[in-house]
């Protein structure tokens, strides 16, 4: 073939430009004249400006592109099996995937449903293709994640917990927090949920910790499947970020939206912080066996992705439109992560509650202590003894950590807003709505429930705003129950009907595994029920004591290696 001649040059024919194609596709819509479309998911925002589609893609190129991505993902999964990935995978890591992958397909598919809510709100049809692709993307994410989970179940040493995954999602005291995240995308004011909470905050900011930072940690633990699936998922997110930003820009030019935008950006940022940092922070810091001191810690990742990328590069520029950004909350979230040990305290909470989990959590050991102390100076003094206790109490026959009087742990209240445990004791607060007492993890979450999710905001009626409802406090469901009965009711049992699905260790031998007999005789209590029953004076005293915190008692049992 002569130089400069290519097959493409021989076969190429004139086509229509991308700009022309997207403009024609955008012209498919029209304004109905016979019957008006029902406004089924109302919003208090006004959107009069036509949002622009920054991605300029049509479905004809979208589907083959996605199929190609899929081929790579499924090829990599096959390769991982042929390469015997599970022989070298770290069970400590895969166990946490039982929780993570139980949660995430629901928020993903909720994001697909959310596209129905925003698609009709904006004038013009240009962004409709963007919303369509996002809808199909989210269908992809939800089912590709279900597939990954099934794959772990089929190939990992301990499938228990994966086998009950969606049932566990509906019942578990931790996955319920993830549901607040997913329902937050699709219920209430359509813009608040489907645009600000989902695309502007969750997808633009926090998917980076979810889908970029976490896969790196997976790879360090011998898990090449999660990075393959989730980096492929993340490659779709840029489209969604574009959708979110485009809608945001269409609203921001109307000053009457500013008050609501400020409210929603604040609410969404804070709740994403409490929920995503709790879960992903724990997976990355406590689900890993890699203690390379040169790798970034979760807070370092957070600084890169949330502080620099989102806050400084994405949020700050919108101030020029007259939007007041929640600077104080960004600083407060940072302090909670760095100074107030949010992630470490959440990990403690997951660990003490292990019998009602559906995955295994093993104790942290000396090697882990060393890394934590290096990355979080002062960690050992506050958390070292806790994990030693946990290691010691991981043997069947010991009293479960939660009810054991020896270690000094005090079970936390739950936050009515984000549903996370109120683990930063000094930030704990209570409030009243319609004469009823509620507990919150922070003043920001109290504001979310008592001020933001109401029918009026700063004197402005907000008739479309959602409401927090349901049995939001998990412990209320089992208040007064025996622990063994609760586990049975949850269905978190292995097929023999007595061995508990969760275990506080990674020992894969029947003699080391806890059964119902090992946990019975302890009564679950809901901190919310108890505090509501208190007299005002007792309550004040209780809140003051709670805010003062607790101290884990010294564990003289030597580095978590307790001989029996």
């Amino acid at each position, binding site marked *: 073939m002569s130089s400069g001649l290519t097959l493409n040059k021989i076969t190429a*024919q004139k*086509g229509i430009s991308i700009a022309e194609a997207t403009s*024609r*596709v955008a012209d*498919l*819509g*029209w304004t109905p004249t*016979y019957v008006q*479309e029902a406004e089924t*998911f109302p919003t208090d925002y006004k959107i009069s400006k036509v949002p622009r589609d920054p991605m300029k893609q*049509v*479905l004809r190129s979208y*589907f083959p592109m*996605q*199929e190609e991505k899929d081929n790579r993902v499924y090829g990599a999964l096959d390769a991982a099996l042929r390469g015997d990935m*599970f*022989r070298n*995978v770290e069970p400590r890591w895969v166990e946490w995937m039982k929780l993570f992958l139980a949660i995430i397909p*629901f928020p993903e598919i909720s994001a697909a449903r959310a*596209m*129905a809510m925003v*698609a009709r709100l904006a004038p013009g049809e240009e962004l409709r293709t963007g919303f369509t692709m996002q809808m*199909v993307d989210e269908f992809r994410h*939800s*089912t590709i994640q279900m*597939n990954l989970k099934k794959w772990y*179940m089929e190939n*990992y*040493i301990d*499938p228990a917990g994966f*086998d*009950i995954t*969606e049932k566990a999602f509906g019942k578990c005291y931790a996955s*319920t927090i993830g*549901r607040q995240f997913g*329902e*937050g995308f*699709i*219920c209430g004011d359509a813009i608040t949920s489907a645009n600000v909470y989902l695309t502007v905050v969750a997808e633009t900011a926090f998917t980076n910790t979810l889908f970029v930072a976490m896969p790196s940690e997976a790879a360090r633990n011998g898990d090449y499947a999660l990075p393959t699936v989730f980096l492929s998922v993340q490659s779709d997110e840029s489209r969604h970020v574009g959708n979110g930003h485009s809608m945001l820009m269409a609203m921001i030019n109307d000053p009457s939206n500013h008050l609501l935008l400020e409210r929603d950006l604040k609410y969404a940022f804070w709740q994403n912080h409490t929920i995503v940092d709790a879960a992903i922070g724990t997976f990355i810091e406590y689900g890993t066996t890699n203690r390379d001191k040169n790798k970034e810690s979760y807070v370092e990742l957070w600084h890169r992705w949330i502080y620099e990328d989102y806050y400084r590069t994405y949020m700050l520029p919108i101030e020029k439109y007259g939007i007041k950004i929640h600077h104080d909350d960004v600083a407060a979230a940072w302090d909670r992560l760095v100074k107030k040990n949010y992630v470490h305290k959440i990990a403690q909470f997951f660990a003490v509650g292990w019998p009602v989990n559906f995955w295994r959590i093993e104790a942290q050991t000396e090697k882990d202590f060393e890394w934590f102390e290096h990355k979080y100076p002062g960690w050992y003094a506050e958390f070292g003894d806790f994990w030693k206790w946990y*290691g*010691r109490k*991981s*043997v069947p026959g010991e009293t479960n950590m939660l009810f054991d009087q020896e270690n000094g742990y005090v079970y936390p209240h739950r936050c009515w807003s984000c549903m996370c445990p109120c683990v930063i004791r000094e930030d704990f607060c209570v409030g009243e709505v319609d004469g009823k007492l509620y507990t919150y993890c922070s003043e920001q979450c109290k504001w979310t429930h008592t001020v933001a999710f109401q*029918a009026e905001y700063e004197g402005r009626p907000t008739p479309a*705003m*959602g*409401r927090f*409802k*349901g049995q*939001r406090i*998990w412990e209320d*469901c089992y208040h007064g129950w025996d622990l063994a009965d609760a586990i049975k009711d*949850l269905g978190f049992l*292995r*097929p023999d009907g007595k061995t508990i699905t969760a275990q506080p*260790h990674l*020992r*894969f031998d*029947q003699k080391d595994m806890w059964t119902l007999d090992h946990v019975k005789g302890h009564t679950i209590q809901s901190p919310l029920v108890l505090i509501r029953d208190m007299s005002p004076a007792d309550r004040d005293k209780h809140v003051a004591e709670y805010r003062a915190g607790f101290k884990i008692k010294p564990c003289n049992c030597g580095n978590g290696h*307790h001989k029996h």
Partner: protein
Amino acid sequence: MEGTATPIKSGAAGAATFPGSDSRKFNYYDPKGRKSTHYEDMTLDVQPDPDRYLLQDWIINFPDGTPTYSKDWTRCKSVDWHKYRAVDQEWEKTHYQRQSTICGTVQSVIENGRRSGAAARFDKSWVKVLQDHLGAYKHAEFGLGTSLMQAQRYGFTQMINNAILTNSSYKLRFGQDLTLYLGEIGLDIEGGIDKDAGKKHWMEDPIWQGTRRAIEEIMASSDYLEQYIAINVVFEPLVGELFRSGFVLQMAAAHNDFITPSVVSAAEGDYERNLANCVELVHNLLNDQDYSLHNKVIIGEWVEKHAKLAHAAAAQLQPIWSLPRVKVASFPESFDLARNRFNNVLQQCGLPVPAVTA
């Protein structure tokens, strides 16, 4: 005994035997057949339900007290919304494979057709039909796609919503296929194809106003099952197939056009699957243990309402059959076929045939 160390050096299945070590199937739902299908594993219970495993109920409400998902979003009722399975069993992998294959086929047909100079040889009368009427019809497909995009938010289970979602995806792709196709062949045709003509006919031409009205009525419905059923059981056989199969596929070849039928026939393949999915759901509702009669009345009302609109729309399309130079198909024949198809779908479902098409 060591408190933390693990004596097993492998994380692989089978490396140890202990309670639950062989529990390698999702065990929280009853498969429809003897064994779970991959589709079922990917789909069931991802959208939770307080009547199944949702311990704490829905935790956010709309301001009127409606929870995140509500059974009241359709007038139909069911004792078990979880029974439904999409016949096409689509999950992401199969959906992208199928969509991508269609995109590849359609593009290949267009490219090779154009390379052979086919579009320039289309009969002039036919080019105008494509410009004005296929150009108008693409908006109908878009309207169906956006209605389904809306509807996929409301179903009470993941199975129903995902079936509606993939249906939306197919419709929106096809609307775009037609748009881009007309743009591309316009490059090869002397005088081009007026890109605004289709929309003008869609909005103003009396031939299309019945169709536009029928679509707008579907778009305006706030009952997602009314939308889903009106589209697949009523509009598609009476208007969609009538125009696609009863007109385009029959007339094109006689006007030197072998490209358009290939592009359009993709939609017929899509519809076969979406019809099967929808009929399965209708069948479930009409055979519901408690609400069979109730559902029959409701769905019957929808069918009657939309059949009137679709039938009127179809009748208004008649002049299109006179436009091509070579009249190889007649409207009455095509319309008869469409009515038969519609009546047949209803009979298979066990629904009465409305007077308008009887």
